[in-house]
């Protein structure tokens, strides 16, 4: 390998990291740099410092330590047999890059991952060294997310948790069949074991902190994972089932979906089609329904078609509502919170406002209009003091009226 400067390495190692969807910098403890020696703060909600034209937010410096890898996973641009240019950062380079980006307010912190070089333990040790140096030498108080290596020594994972806000292990694919086919050297069992250990570590730490407030924090922003959608035969129904198992078993903060993306120098086993971005979006909506709207996973699955896929033209909540027309219209002045949350087009904030406002007086349609972005979408599904839909929820044409006309082309500018 020729000598590359930091910027040339950055071009390669950021390019190699971009298939990881996570960029969250939220959900950790509050910290400031006041009274410290360094820089950095976390105040609850994350900040997206920029947006790329792919619509993804740029919150963290998301890079690999190296894109060399001893594994040969078909979907991965960095697999052993891939012909991409390889590069490797030194620990010091990553530390300096993180600090100098942070000082200019480009980022919230670092999301560091790596290809496996040498042994899993060696690789994990390198990742931990970066986090440790940032925290202990430079007193960096921004956000750190480390990807952990499933086969690494638990002692190393424990160290990682002391310095990082969040740890993550990717389950990679929604089903074990998919994983066996596309990532033959990875084992679903080992990935699950690693996630279980991480959960135990996080739980133990919570107990310890309940007893001793001075106990050091362990991964205060919890663990997350990512699965690739569209690289194997898994249906949306499979994905929802898999995600809900992950949430309940391992106490994950987030499951990220990444629409499989054609990669340079791809393996022949893969479909080489543009990713169904809308599918990814629908899966996130389904994920939200389970996490914030009180839907059971089985109810989300109920919104899928015969082939187990969520409709692409309407959102899953609307799809569910159209299958359960008997439950509508919902009276916004009387219905319980759970039912208000089921109204298509009604978000959690709107529901909270409705609940608050209706304690004062009976709400009319124009009251609701002031609380939501689009009253037109809600009309067929709600009853207000001065409004009752004309059996619209039963109308056969309803579905068509709810579908937004497709834009034929994206605008260039």
């Amino acid at each position: 390998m020729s000598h590359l400067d930091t910027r040339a390495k950055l071009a390669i190692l950021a390019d190699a990291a971009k298939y990881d969807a996570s960029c969250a910098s939220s959900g950790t403890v509050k910290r400031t740099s006041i009274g410290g020696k360094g820089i950095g703060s976390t105040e609850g909600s994350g900040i997206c410092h920029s947006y790329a034209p792919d619509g993804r937010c740029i919150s963290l410096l998301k890079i690999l330590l190296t894109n060399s890898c001893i594994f040969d996973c078909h979907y991965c641009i960095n697999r052993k047999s891939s012909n991409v240019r390889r590069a490797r950062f030194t620990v010091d380079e990553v530390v300096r890059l993180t600090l100098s980006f942070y000082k200019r307010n480009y980022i919230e912190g670092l999301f560091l991952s790596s290809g496996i070089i040498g042994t899993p333990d060696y690789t994990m040790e390198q990742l931990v060294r970066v986090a440790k140096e940032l925290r202990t030498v430079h007193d960096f108080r921004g956000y750190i997310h480390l990807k952990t290596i499933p086969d690494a020594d638990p002692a190393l994972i424990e160290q990682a948790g002391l310095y990082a806000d969040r740890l993550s292990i990717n389950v990679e694919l929604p089903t074990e069949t998919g994983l066996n086919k596309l990532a033959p050297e990875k084992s679903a069992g080992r990935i699950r074991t690693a996630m279980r250990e991480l959960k135990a570590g996080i739980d133990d730490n919570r107990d310890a902190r309940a007893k001793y407030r001075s106990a050091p924090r362990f991964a205060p922003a919890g663990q997350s994972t990512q699965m690739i959608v569209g690289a194997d035969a898994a249906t949306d129904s499979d994905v929802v089932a898999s995600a809900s198992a992950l949430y309940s078993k391992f106490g994950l903060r987030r499951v990220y979906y990444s629409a499989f993306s054609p990669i340079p120098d791809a393996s022949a086993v893969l479909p080489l089609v543009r990713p169904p971005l809308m599918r990814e979006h629908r899966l996130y909506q389904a994920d939200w329904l389970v996490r914030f709207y009180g839907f059971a996973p089985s109810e989300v699955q109920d919104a899928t078609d015969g082939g187990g896929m969520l409709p692409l033209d309407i959102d899953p909540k609307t799809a569910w509502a159209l299958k359960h027309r008997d439950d509508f219209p919902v009276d916004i002045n009387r219905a319980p919170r759970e039912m208000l949350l089921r109204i298509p087009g009604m978000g959690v904030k709107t529901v909270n406002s409705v609940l608050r406002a209706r304690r004062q007086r009976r709400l009319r349609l124009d009251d609701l209009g002031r609380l939501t972005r689009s009253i037109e979408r809600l009309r067929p599904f709600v009853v207000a003091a001065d409004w009752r839909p004309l059996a619209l929820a039963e109308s056969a044409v309803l579905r068509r009226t709810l579908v937004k006309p497709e834009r034929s082309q994206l605008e260039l500018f």
Partner: protein
Amino acid sequence: MERVVARSREPPGDDPVLTAVLARPDDIDGWRTVARRLAAGGVAGDTIVWQVGDTATDLLGGDVLPPGDAPMFTVPKEFLAVASRVICNRDAERFALLYTALTTLRTRPKLLDDPADPLVRRLYDLDKGVRRDVHKMRAFVRFRDVPDPEGERFAAWFEPEHHIVRLNAGFFARRFANMRWSILTPDECVHWDGELSFTPGATRADAPDGDALEETWRTYFASIFNPARLKVKAMTAEMPKKYWRNLPEASLVPGLIAGAAERTRMMIDAGDKAGMSNAAVQAGAGAWVRTGDGGPADALAELRDDAAQCKRCPLYGPATQTVFGEGPADAQLVFVGEQPGDNEDLAGRPFIGPAGQLFDRALAAAGIDRTRAYVTNAVKHFKFEQRGKRRIHSKPDTSEIDACRWWVDHERAAIRPAVTVALGATAARSLTGKAVTISRERGRPLTLADGSEAWITVHPSFLLRIEDKAAAALEFDRFVADLVAVRERLAALAGAG
């Protein structure tokens, strides 16, 4: 600080109009003190004029403050929290709206519990606007280092929508507690050196105009972008264009979008694997990593930096930036176009708009690799006429062409290409120094004053203007044929040399 005085003018009603003067546009404490007294005195909202700043000179009449011992009253905590943000909104009605809410609260203490009430809705919307602006400022401030013998120091230029500098100062102090920094804005500036201080508004010229690390940040931005998933609306929803001019990475966006389809196609193309990986690496990093071999590359880099300040003709005024040439310093082939268009002007790169995309197609059809050619323009600033919101291309005149010729000549002197191709009459004029009829000169080599070889052909935008499809296809083929002739000529020259 605040004063409440009566004007001599009599309003239509019986009450005199009161003018309440606040120290600053976000002066919540002043507003609170005045509003409390006025409300306790039962003063109606429509008889109060709220003013910011010291306007004592045009005020007549004396104090009509209600007695200082007016009964105190309480309001919900939430109202104070909301008011402290709403007052930062630039909406001129904010003081009056808050006052109306304050007086209404005395009879309807649960007013805020009714978010569907039009007044409450209005306040919440103003609040939301401020909170969003606060969030965007935290996101989009870009510090640049300021040379300082005492050590590291940073400054940023930011243009907030609302009066949020003070509201937001604490966040930056908590985050960058051990750094010396300033944020300059048109309204007010904030500085931190272990403690906060505020100074009056500044101009962009007072802020540093660059930082050596920005190129690295731009490299990161371009590399983390996945061209296989283009969601431009999702991006602009969260990063509206009004913020772009102060974001060093934003000028890359049009180019990344324009190149995305091509890069995805290259990824999917199952053909030449090695070539594909190289192309992917180039697409990810090549465009702005200088070769840095100390020779022509440095000369070009220097020229580019100088050209960025060019004021040789008046076109620099309305244009966004100088659009300098682009390509390897050792290119054997140089293309000279007319002038940057709307897209190029914003992105700072030549030939990326509609004509540039047609140019790319023609090059591909002729088997010429654009990344190995140097592409530039006869005139480096966008000349246009403003029509409504649109900027309509306007042809440069000879004085502008001749003024800019200085740059073209130096670019060619640094690169020393085997062949230079003039695209269109403006480029031909720039290279030859005289008016040229394209139809008569195209398709054969000419010798320039410096002894080098030039070819002349049409400008791609000429092809875009032909409405008849068949005629356009014919002209496109002729254009490609000219390019093929150039490619063959280059090969012959390389063989001979």
